[in-house]
């Protein structure tokens, strides 16, 4: 019997009411840069420290989605012709969508991407391909480990923003919560598909999660 151990998380279904997507602009800020959809994700601010913090958050999130993208690419490269491939493809498409959104945010707000992107490119692909060589269970285990790390990371970002000023960061919080929910879904999917039956599951999971934490730490600073 498998024991499902879910990490402590915030509520999956956020009780916050969804904001109307179009036409909602922060009225207490001077100038607004809006995307095509008419609302801004990062509140415009003139405080240098706050801007630096927001940029750092977006930088590391972008790096994370980029890495996740490459991990799924690696998994598809190995398992692309097996039965599990439609599932991995679906999860990969969701990650691509996340990456696209972060690319948009970075471009709009002139955020510098992390210097280590080529490294995450190679490392992510290698991790995905390597775990997939252990078979479908290996790939699922890798997914579980990575998605758990990413969810924890998003949760800590949500906590930080809530502590500061939930009102001001409403759109950003909404976005991160949405992405966090997607990642949790991937995590659960991985568990459903026999992630834990790979030999050395705990060890593999621990190693991958340490790697993810290190990657997040470096990407925040570089």
């Amino acid at each position, binding site marked *: 019997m498998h024991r499902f151990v879910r990490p402590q998380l915030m509520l999956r279904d956020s009780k916050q009411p969804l904001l109307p997507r179009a036409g909602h602009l922060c009225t207490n800020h001077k100038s607004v840069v809006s995307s095509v959809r008419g609302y801004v994700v990062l509140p415009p601010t003139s405080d240098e420290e706050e801007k630096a913090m927001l940029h750092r958050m977006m930088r590391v999130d972008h790096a994370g989605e980029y890495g996740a993208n490459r991990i799924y690419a690696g998994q598809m490269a190995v398992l692309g012709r097996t039965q599990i491939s439609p599932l991995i493809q679906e999860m990969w498409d969701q990650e691509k969508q996340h990456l696209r959104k*972060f690319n948009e945010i970075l471009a709009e707000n002139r955020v510098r991407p992390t210097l280590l992107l080529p490294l995450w490119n190679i490392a992510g692909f290698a991790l995905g391909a390597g775990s997939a060589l252990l078979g479908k269970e290996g790939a699922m285990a890798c997914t579980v480990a990575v998605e758990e790390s990413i969810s924890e990371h998003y949760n800590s970002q949500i906590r930080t923003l809530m502590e500061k000023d939930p009102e001001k960061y409403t759109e950003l919080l909404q976005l991160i919560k949405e992405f966090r929910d997607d990642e949790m879904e991937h995590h659960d999917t991985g568990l459903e598909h026999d992630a834990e039956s790979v030999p050395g599951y705990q060890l593999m999971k621990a190693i991958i999660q340490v790697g993810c934490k290190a990657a997040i730490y470096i990407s925040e600073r570089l």
Partner: protein
Amino acid sequence: MIFGIKEKSIILTNFDVLFAIATNIHVRLKTGFVLQVAVQGTVSLQCSNVRRGFHRAALLRLASDSKSDTSVPPPSYHEVHTAGESSSSSAQGESSEDAQPNTSFQDQSGEHGEDYETEEQLQARILTAALEFVPQHGWTVEAIAAAAETLGLSSASTGMFNNGAGDLVLHFVAQCNAQLAETLAEQNNQVQLGQAEAKKTAEFLKDAVETRLRMLIPYIDTWPQAMSILLLPHNIPDSLKHLSTMVDDIWYYAGDRSTDVNWYTRRAALTGIYNTTELVMVQDSSPDFEETWAFLDNRIKDVVNMANTAKQVQATGEAVVQGLMGAAITVTTQKMIQFPERNILSTKRLLGLLF
């Protein structure tokens, strides 16, 4: 002396009373200067100015009493100069600023101030004035001292500038970059509004760098001195920051929205172009720096060529790899057909990975 909020009940018609009250108001401002109000004349405009000033004094009193850190600005007092001369209060005035009431600005809280100047603004004014003396004195403290004297301050005001000539050069660089950003934003607006054609990237970069370098022309004779000041170790962080902001601005308005390693390669390339062109410019003696602009043009062409070549190499490489893979698969399949007893399935699977 504490004012209540009911300052409306104060009858501000008796200027002698006002004067007595005013001299009793000492307000410690953030900069530590102690300024007093000089009240003079019978102009009702001044009266309303002073009235506003008292309002702010009262609010400040209350604000400081309640220790709130809100948006009440420090009251702004200064010697109010009108067309006439200053009154006897100038004997008491310890105003250290020769401020004119035309500095309309927004202080740190965003509220419209009472012609009050912060120390940063004063420093900016002195440094801007000092630029006129640079051709004569070079990028030195003497230029700043000369400027301070023209503004009516003592030449000892240079003590305000801990970095001396470095402050002057960095101020000039920041000013030029701000001007450039403004120009680029304006051009961008024009393009957005459809009033102007969008330039191609190479041309845009060339024009932007040329615009920026042309701002050096009035100071070109002394610019090597400024460059060496910027290279001093304690100035390097600031000068690098200015340089990187400028390059980022130029690429942003050129339309770069990349979020991968190209972000870095493009900015590095443009930094290289800018620095080398600057070096060429300081020793260029051709009329209107034609050689410099020709050099700039060639460098930008080089970068564009390299980018195109890189793309071609990548495309060719990919095609070659595909071809090799196809050949390998064909060979292994043939071998499998010819020699069924040999197990080359694993090789085929391995090669199949890379499709």
